[in-house]
């Protein structure tokens, strides 16, 4: 088990924590199940009304928390502030908010697959070369390596999850980068290309708090470059689905 990757102290629930949770998917009731997924005969069938009927598939799954840390404590922070403004000392306000299990209940998680459940090469996933997948080294509780499928997510109630592990700050940064590549920008910023073009090393990047797509690159020669990087929308060309893909 890697100490560089998994942290030793539990601390508060954080982005990147490994939990056990029921993971649900909704699928068309009358269609064949997705490839590689057996159909649970006991699955719940939902009356879709004007929409096609749906079926719920739920599996107990090892998952990774992908909600951002500030989202995990948003209502808690608001409640502490409210109670304190109402005159309660901060320590008591924190205790009261800590004890309120109605706060910050929704957690977004992504399922962790076994190495034999992915189509991609595990070594490539471990190098970070496969967009949408994030490699987890061996962890004793998991009993082996895992791969987080960042392209599939579900919202679960915190009350029905149990936590088993968490990432170090450095590993969590790697996961955030993989998550950003999956959801926002498929191509990482070509920092090496920028450095080569400008003939100087990049020493820092600061992000505009009000507008996260605006960032400033700081270079070793003292120059600073403000950039605005819109999320990548995909490359035109190649094979594409037709309008039939949205029935």
């Amino acid at each position, binding site marked *: 088990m890697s100490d560089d990757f998994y942290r030793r102290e*539990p*601390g*508060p*629930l954080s982005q990147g924590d490994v*939990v*056990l949770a*029921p*993971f649900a998917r909704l699928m068309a009731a009358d269609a064949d199940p997705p490839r590689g997924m057996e159909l649970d005969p*006991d*699955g*719940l069938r939902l009356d879709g009304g004007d929409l096609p009927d749906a079926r*719920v598939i*739920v*599996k*107990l*799954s*090892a998952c990774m928390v992908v909600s*951002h*840390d*500030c989202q995990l*404590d948003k209502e*808690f*922070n608001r409640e*502490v*502030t409210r109670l*304190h403004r109402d005159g309660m000392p*901060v*320590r*008591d306000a*924190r*205790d*009261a908010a*800590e*004890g*309120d*299990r*109605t706060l910050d209940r929704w*957690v977004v998680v992504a*399922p*962790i*697959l*076994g190495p034999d*459940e992915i189509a991609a090469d595990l070594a490539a996933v471990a190098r970070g070369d496969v967009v949408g997948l994030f490699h987890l080294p061996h962890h*004793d*509780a*998991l*009993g*082996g390596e*895992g791969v987080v499928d960042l392209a599939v997510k579900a919202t679960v109630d*915190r*009350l029905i*999850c*149990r*936590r*088993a*592990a*968490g990432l170090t700050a450095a590993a969590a940064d790697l996961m955030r980068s993989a998550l950003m590549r999956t959801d926002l920008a498929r191509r990482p910023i070509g920092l090496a290309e920028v450095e080569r073009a400008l003939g100087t090393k990049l020493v820092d990047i*600061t*992000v505009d*708090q009000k507008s996260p797509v605006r960032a400033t690159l700081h270079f070793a020669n003292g120059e600073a470059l403000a950039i605005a990087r819109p999320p990548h929308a995909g490359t035109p060309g190649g094979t594409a689905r037709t309008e039939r893909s949205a029935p």
Partner: protein
Amino acid sequence: MIFWPTFAFAGMAAPTRTPAERETVAPVLDACERLYRTEAFIDFSACVRPHLRRGWTFTSVLAAVRDEAPDVLVALHLEIKGCERDLRERGLGIESRLGRVIHVAGDVVVISGKDEIRRRLTPVNVRHLDLRPDMWVVRERVSLRGHSGELLLPAVAPTALPDLPVSAADDDLPAAAGGEDAAMAEPSQRVLAVRPANALASNLVRAFATENVAKDWTSMWGRGEGRVYADAREAMSGTVPDDEVALTHRRAGSETW
């Protein structure tokens, strides 16, 4: 359904130092005496007594009596309602609202009610209650000739006694069955077995079962100091007066908070 009569609590809590105060409380004490002589109360006492063993709680006794003799609870409820009607005519005001405990923190109890999602209370008897999240409670506001106070009393779920008649005094209580609150009280009967998705999930299940994952890790709630604002943390250590704390909604050292 009220476990203990509210007016009896009110009788015990009201001051009786002066003749005027004693005169005020007298009707309540009369009602208690009458109630304790009724057949319903004697039957109820007989049901309760075997359960008052060492370590008993309101919850445990309530659950036992509800399971063993629901008709006794109904009979007692009707007697209590009769006494309350008499007392109301003599100036005792009781407002009852059914709710469910969300959480308890010291003297503060947060409950959800029929028409309110969250309400913070500081009931006078909270120290004597074993309140836990999801318990049903009756919130009682008692007023008697200028005196008033709020009590919180353990109750059974409204669906637990479907034959209980709803009296005029129970207008605030939800319907016995089939209503929104009934749905809250009764878990769905449709249960879907959830199986592990893969070997990793099975290993995690096994790790939790054999306690190979430390309990500190399994908590999904502890926020720890890392999530307390820097200013607030200083205040807690006594370096900054509490009143001067500025809550910044930002974790120390984090630019993305």
